[in-house]
């Protein structure tokens, strides 16, 4: 087990290093000189040259990479051109919104996707199953922002039950009741992913139901609901756990759009705005953090999967 953990961790670190090189090269391929973005159009050539040397942009690209990577390892992701603030601070400011949004969304996904998937599986072939599977496929075919705009139109603009945009921190006035700002965004974000988990739960329940030990359990006379819960569901959830890394990646992409629709002060919206503003240090830093998070989550999923089912070697 320890050897396995070390091997997977090593692979994840290697991927992270490779990804950091990709990010660095990516940023340097973007047309337009960041020095001019920083100084504005009125800068004199002397000022430009001075800043270029001060930031180390006159060095060869691999020197710049090691310089940047060294700073990152010390916890310095650089300074935002637009805000003139450390990137780590900007990420910290957006982290509350994004992490809470992700957590609430995950609760929806598990609470809706798994039970409904079980229901579809035990009613396999009936109109209930076909209906639920159809709805799941429909939800996976809807653009996230369209769902979001409709929820705003219905629940914020017409009914006036919920706020349509923004999110004040739960540490500010209003406290936990500020979570209502995240209700519509989290439902928007959960819809396609709950559908995915629903389909996955159903498919893997049906797979496990074919196993010999399920037949044995049934023939021993164990009550049907116990067979479903103890023998089928517990094993079927393994496949669902392995999909969480995958779901997380989809979640980030969709969070970028969702945070934009609901004007949430999160990391996803920050990335899009920074891309539009050509704020390179922020793009670089945020994407690196996101990739890192993705790799850590996948690593934890792989390790817990191996722990839960020692027969599996994911290599």
């Amino acid at each position, binding site marked *: 087990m320890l050897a396995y953990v070390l091997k997977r961790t090593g692979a994840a670190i290697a991927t992270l290093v490779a*990804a950091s090189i990709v990010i660095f090269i990516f940023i340097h391929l973007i047309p337009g000189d960041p020095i001019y973005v920083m100084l504005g159009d009125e800068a004199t050539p002397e000022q430009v040259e001075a800043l270029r040397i001060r930031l180390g942009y006159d060095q060869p690209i691999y020197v710049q990479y090691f310089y940047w990577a060294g700073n990152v390892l010390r916890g310095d992701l650089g300074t935002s051109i637009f805000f003139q603030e450390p990137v780590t601070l900007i990420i910290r400011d957006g982290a509350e919104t994004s992490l809470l949004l992700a957590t609430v969304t995950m609760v929806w996904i598990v609470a809706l996707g798994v039970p409904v998937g079980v229901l579809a599986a035990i009613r396999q072939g009936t109109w209930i199953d076909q209906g639920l599977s159809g709805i799941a*496929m429909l939800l996976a075919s809807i653009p996230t922002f369209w769902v979001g705009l409709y929820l705003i139109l219905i629940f914020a603009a017409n009914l006036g039950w919920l706020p349509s945009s923004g999110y004040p921190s739960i540490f500010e006035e209003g406290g936990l009741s500020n979570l209502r700002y995240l209700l519509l965004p989290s439902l928007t974000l959960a819809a396609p992913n709950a559908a995915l988990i629903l389909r996955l739960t159903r498919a893997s329940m049906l797979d496990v139901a074919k196993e010999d030990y399920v037949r044995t359990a049934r023939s021993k006379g164990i009550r049907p609901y116990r067979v479903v819960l103890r023998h089928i569901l517990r094993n079927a959830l393994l496949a669902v756990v392995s999909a969480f890394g995958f779901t997380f990646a989809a979640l980030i*992409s969709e969070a970028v759009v969702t945070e934009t629709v609901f004007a949430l002060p999160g990391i996803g919206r920050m990335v899009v705005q920074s891309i*539009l503003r050509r704020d390179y240090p922020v793009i670089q830093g945020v994407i690196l953090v996101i990739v890192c998070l993705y790799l850590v989550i996948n690593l934890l999923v792989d390790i817990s999967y191996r722990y839960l089912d020692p027969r599996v070697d994911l290599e």
Partner: protein
Amino acid sequence: MTTKLRSFLSVFAARPVALLGLVYLVTIVTVALGADVIAPYAPEAIEPINRLSPPSWGHLFGTDHFGRDTFSRVLHGSRLALLIGVGVVSFALATGVPIGIVSALFPRLGRVLMRMVDVMMAFPSLLLALGLIVILGQSVANAILAIGVIYLTTTARITYGVTLRLREETYVEAARSMGASTVWMIRRHILPNMISPLLVQASFVFAFAQLGAASLDFLGLGAPPEIPSWGNMLAESRIYITRAPWLLFYPGLMIVLTAFSLNLVGDVLRDRLDPRFREMLSNRQRR
């Protein structure tokens, strides 16, 4: 060929909903080809006097903030939707299939290539696409490329898996021991066996390309704003949603119906697939 076509259609006869999907897709292709003839107005014709007018007999789907006919624009939008779909699928297949086959047949090179695919998959798909567009500039071709790169990775992985399975088959083994060249083996044994799994993959990629393109359009980094794409229409309608909800409804509905139909068709084709390959094309598609 006719028997093949008949067996293809018989699959759909067993699943009437999927047949509806297929009919919808044929309709969309027809509409895209004949948009100039079918659409009552030119997509960019403005009628300032009829700004934001609700659906009526004159304007079936209402008009937008310039008084442009939404129905005509929706019909013209199908062209870009199909162009994006065909473009993304072609790009993903043209790059992913060779990478997958080569990786499976030459393990040493394969380890490096598949590792690179892993690295690319560590980036959230939409951020990868946004980054590519910032580097390449905003255009329809670059939107296709940026979304295509996302599906290059999944296509390469699936091709890799399928080729590994095929390589173990007795007939491939036999051909190799008789001295068949690699190119011959790929052409004779590997590619023909890969058509069905790739067809399934293509229909899912086509579906998700619609959603990806719509997201890019919505963020203002997809097709240039003067092009009547469904995503652009939704992005423009955003500030009028309470005054003119029909602007939000019709283009969105088209995206949903198109993606849903493609998913239905892909699902039916997958159920017909060789069970050895089915697992690789599971529900865990990348969005």
